[in-house]
């Protein structure tokens, strides 16, 4: 079956001592049903293309909103469906069809805090292992007084998928098969509490490997 497709722009707004700073990225979501030949196979297929939102801050650091979330759905497809489609009830393909048609869905919406993408920054952008999580309410503790997350929004768009983000991560080509701590990306050690052991280039972009 041909997949349903739609694009949306994710915008992150941050209050800083020097005023509002914004960053945005355009993603494409696709979803379709598929025939399962074996009982173990999934009957639905879906995915997201795009890159992490990057917001350059006055203190020289950059905040990244990754392609994964800590919410129930775990990815930006679920984030966009939850925000834009009032009828979304975990029915990925049906929701993609509604959003693609534009009927009965919102054109733009604010993302609820519980659905935010994972937010990270680097203490040293040249060192991938220096990645640290930034909680939605912890901007001041990471970046300093006067820093706060204002809001995150989504808006349906027909703009091209955002590319070119690799210029922000100078080491990306050396980490295609590694986690940010240098360990192999083939397996993930779930006992390791270090964030860098669980993130890879794939969490920042689907376009690096194209």
């Amino acid at each position, binding site marked *: 079956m041909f997949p349903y497709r739609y694009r949306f722009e994710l915008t992150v707004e941050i209050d800083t001592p020097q005023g509002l700073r914004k960053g945005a990225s355009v993603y494409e979501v696709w979803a379709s049903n598929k025939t399962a030949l*074996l*009982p*173990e*196979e*999934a009957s639905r297929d879906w*995915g*997201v293309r795009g890159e992490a939102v990057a917001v350059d801050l006055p203190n020289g650091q950059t905040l990244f909103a990754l*392609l994964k979330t800590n919410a*129930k*759905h*775990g*990815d930006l497809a679920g984030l966009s469906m939850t925000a834009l489609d009032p009828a979304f009830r*975990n029915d990925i393909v049906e929701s993609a069809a509604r959003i693609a048609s534009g009927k009965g869905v919102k054109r733009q919406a604010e993302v609820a805090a519980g659905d935010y993408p994972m937010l990270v920054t680097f203490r040293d952008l040249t060192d991938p292992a220096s990645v640290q999580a930034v909680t939605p309410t912890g901007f001041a503790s990471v970046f300093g007084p006067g820093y706060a997350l204002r809001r995150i929004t989504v808006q349906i768009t027909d703009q091209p998928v955002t590319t070119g983000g690799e210029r922000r991560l100078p080491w990306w080509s050396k980490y295609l098969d590694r986690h940010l701590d240098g360990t192999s*990306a*083939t*397996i*993930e*050690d*779930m*006992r390791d509490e270090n964030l860098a052991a669980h993130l*890879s280039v*794939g*969490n920042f972009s*689907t376009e690096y*490997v194209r």
Partner: protein
Amino acid sequence: MSSEISRNVFLSILAVDSYNRGYGQGILGLSPSGNIGNATIEFQSRVSPESGEVGAGFYAIAYDMTGVAGFSAGQTVIAYRGTDANLADRCGTGKDGCNGASYL
């Protein structure tokens, strides 16, 4: 309940768990780390959307079975999606090709 039955039931639970972790999960919101009873999640296979593993529908998760009845301390169990039946002999070993996968 004998330890042999408990061991098989626990293995069945871990087999089902491989469909509820990682990507394309049957149950949303489960933590990728932690425990099932005394079995501790150790490793999972790559879950990046652009990876070959996800493209092939592959997913595996490894558990440390220390403290679980019927298993040795330090023993590892790896659960992966799919069947271990011989599909060329679908009514032979495992019989999944005939009867599907049952967990009890």
